[in-house]
């Protein structure tokens, strides 16, 4: 089958850098949440961008904290 035909059939080969795939999930969550909550749709892109950054920053902070915890406590 051609690569396009197998797109939704065969699993993809994902490299070890798959952590970057958290970005589309965060953006998707921000879009849906702000779409149902925002008062004006004109402000939606700005609010989505801000919320996405907040979520990603929060995840990065959590990852840093967990890394530090493992690095300095686990022997």
């Amino acid at each position: 089958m051609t690569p396009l035909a197998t797109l939704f059939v065969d699993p993809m080969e994902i490299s070890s850098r798959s952590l970057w795939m958290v970005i589309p999930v965060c953006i998707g969550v921000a879009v849906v949440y702000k779409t149902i909550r925002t008062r004006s749709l004109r402000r939606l892109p700005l609010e989505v961008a801000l919320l996405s950054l907040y979520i990603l920053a929060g995840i990065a902070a959590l990852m840093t904290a967990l890394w530090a915890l493992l690095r300095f406590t686990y022997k």
Partner: protein
Amino acid sequence: MAKTPPTKKTIAALAGLLGWLIPGAGHWYIGRPARAIILFVTIQALFWSGVAVGGVFTVQPSLQSWWWRALNPREEDAWWWRAQVCTGLTGIIAYQRQASWYARVEADLPPQPRNPISGPPRDQAEAQQWQQYRTEWQRYQEQADANLAKSHLALTSPAGDIAYIFSGVAGMLNLMCIFDAVLLSLMGRYGEPRPEMPEERREAQV
């Protein structure tokens, strides 16, 4: 000028049902078409991205029937399946796709073992029959797993994890949209909220 938001009577259950069947349809029903389109596109993009990463078996292949898996909490990864089905027709279509592909995997297998007794075993003979059935079923499952591995369609980490997260999160987001549509319908709200006027903003600050 009136400060109350626009109202119109809508049926909350219908808003919820439409919102489950087609992501965003609940919001369309309560008069918010622009938001409905955004929700539909985003949830579909998330879900099908997950299926693209994980393949056709992203939506939980299983030898058990769908109602068994819905009701049996100990079924492996059942919660991911329940999350995926929250996308409504999308999840059901994806499930049917995997069922048809799984049928090809099962084609090489012997007939499924049948449970010889109904209900719990009542005596020693029935207990032995039940034990034999369980052994045959386990052997059948192992052979099905081997066939699945040979087909190169089986989910493996990390693609499987990413696929579950994308499709499961899409389902959970649709659940949030359903709640929103139902609540707005129960409150009698219809259409887009009125934009905040400068006078209202000044009054709110006082």
